[in-house]
């Protein structure tokens, strides 16, 4: 057995040791979104599938937390190791590029899923949720966290400074999640924006995930899952190629 189990363990332990900040804080943020948006939009936003707006909103919030936290885990861990120099501890041992990739992405998935479960558990106290088909929920949670874990890994490999990760988070991840139909059904948008939303890969992840709860979606869930899977495959291929070449990590 190589170094993978230990690296995976370390990457999960790393966020768990500061879980107040990495788990509790995002759960609270989601709860605030729920309170504010449910108040502000309850009457206006029509929800497909004949569910209440809050029952529509909660799956979106859960998936948004999964995506953002999966990204945050791999990207922040890598950039921190690079900036402080302790990346050498991982680069000196005989850990293959595949093991490195798997450890970072899987730990990101764990963080995303833990936060997502936390958001779900807390919001379920306030909102009556349906679970139309749990298998879709699980499938999209796994694929979504994997996509963002891999994207975070890429961002972490590429970035040289903390602010570059922050910029990536603020100018790419945040807009894409906000504009992906977390807070509204894209059918409520003008036609142009509906089409634009279809170019946003996060839309498919959120739409499909929500299907698992309310049994209705803007796009066929299987097709959404395929988009997610394809995104994951592409990001993973790039990440593995970069890791293998030593890009930015092995000068």
């Amino acid at each position, binding site marked *: *057995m190589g*170094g993978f189990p*230990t*690296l995976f363990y370390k990457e999960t332990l790393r966020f768990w040791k500061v879980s107040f900040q990495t788990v509790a804080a995002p759960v609270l943020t989601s709860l605030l979104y729920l309170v504010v948006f449910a108040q502000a939009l309850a009457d206006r936003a029509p929800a497909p599938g004949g569910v209440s707006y809050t029952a529509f909103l909660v799956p979106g919030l859960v998936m948004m937390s999964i995506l953002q936290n999966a990204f945050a885990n791999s990207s922040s861990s890598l950039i921190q190791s690079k900036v402080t120099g302790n990346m*050498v*501890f991982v680069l000196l041992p005989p850990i*293959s590029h595949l093991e490195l990739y798997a450890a970072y992405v899987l730990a990101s998935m764990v963080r995303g899923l833990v936060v997502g479960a936390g958001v779900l558990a807390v919001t379920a106290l306030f909102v009556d949720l349906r679970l139309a088909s749990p298998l879709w929920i699980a499938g999209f949670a796994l694929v979504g966290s994997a996509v963002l874990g891999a994207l975070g890994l890429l961002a972490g490999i590429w970035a040289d400074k903390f602010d570059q990760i922050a910029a990536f988070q603020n100018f790419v991840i945040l807009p894409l999640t906000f504009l992906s139909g977390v807070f509204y059904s894209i059918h409520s948008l003008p036609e142009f924006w509906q089409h634009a939303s279809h170019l946003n890969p996060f839309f498919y992840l959120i739409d499909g995930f929500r299907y698992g709860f309310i049994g209705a979606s803007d796009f066929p869930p299987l097709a959404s899952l395929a988009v997610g899977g394809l995104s994951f495959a592409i990001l993973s291929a790039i990440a593995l190629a970069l890791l293998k070449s*030593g890009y930015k990590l*092995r*000068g």
Partner: protein
Amino acid sequence: MTFAIETVNVEKRYGCLRALDAVSLQVRQGEFFGLLGPNGAGKTTLISVVAGLVRASAGTARVMGADVVADYRSARRMLGVVPQELVFDPFFTVRETLRLQSGYFGLRRNDAWIDEIIHHLDLDAKAEANMRTLSGGMKRRVLVAQALVHKPPVIVLDEPTAGVDVELRQGLWRFIRRLNRDGHTIVLTTHYLDEAEELCDRIALLKAGRVVALDSTRNLLQTFSGFVLRLRLDREQLPAGLDAPVLSQDGTSFNLRLRDTAELESVLHRLREAGVGIAEFELQPPDLEEVFLRVMERH
């Protein structure tokens, strides 16, 4: 026999800077090897190439016969590196740090050995302390410990004694010497030349990415260095006809460089002839600093 470390024409370019320029050297198994050179000579870069932290632009490097790129798993298992920079992971305690490092090498039941290294490096009292709370010297010890978790046959220490107090330095060398006696190959870089002189069997001198001298410590001391003769005389003028070059003068005190003891005799003879009185007299044996300065001057 395979070499502990072997580099063949290793080159590393950063833009137009050649940090390493066709470096070929061999470190034998069981050796205590010194890698010396001024700041920016390329010592750390060379170590990084051997450790796989940096990809060479050209050339190959092997650790115990294993190519550091093609057969990186074997190469890295054979090598322990103490990095020059004082790096640590602030999330973990000393013991956690060592357990994790051990796990990265695929060793999951290694607590007996970890306890032993902790003990030998005098870290017992700090074993459960968070890395963040350790002093610089203590962090340095943990770096040494991390390099040893997988019992590597080849150990490379990049300036392990920079910023370390006398007591730890001596304790560290006792420990490293013991590892060397037990058969580990040691490669060391340091700017404390007296340390290198005392410890190293062989020494490579690096300058601007090139090996400018490589020999046993004894040969280096003999070929490049002589003695320094310190004299205080009864006048401020040396008599004419002295062959030995004057290194420095301060009033009636002179430092002369002598190639060998025969030259000492001729200098003393010449002084006596000229009727010069000698108030003080001291002969300094060759040292590595002399060698170092003279080699660097030449190249």
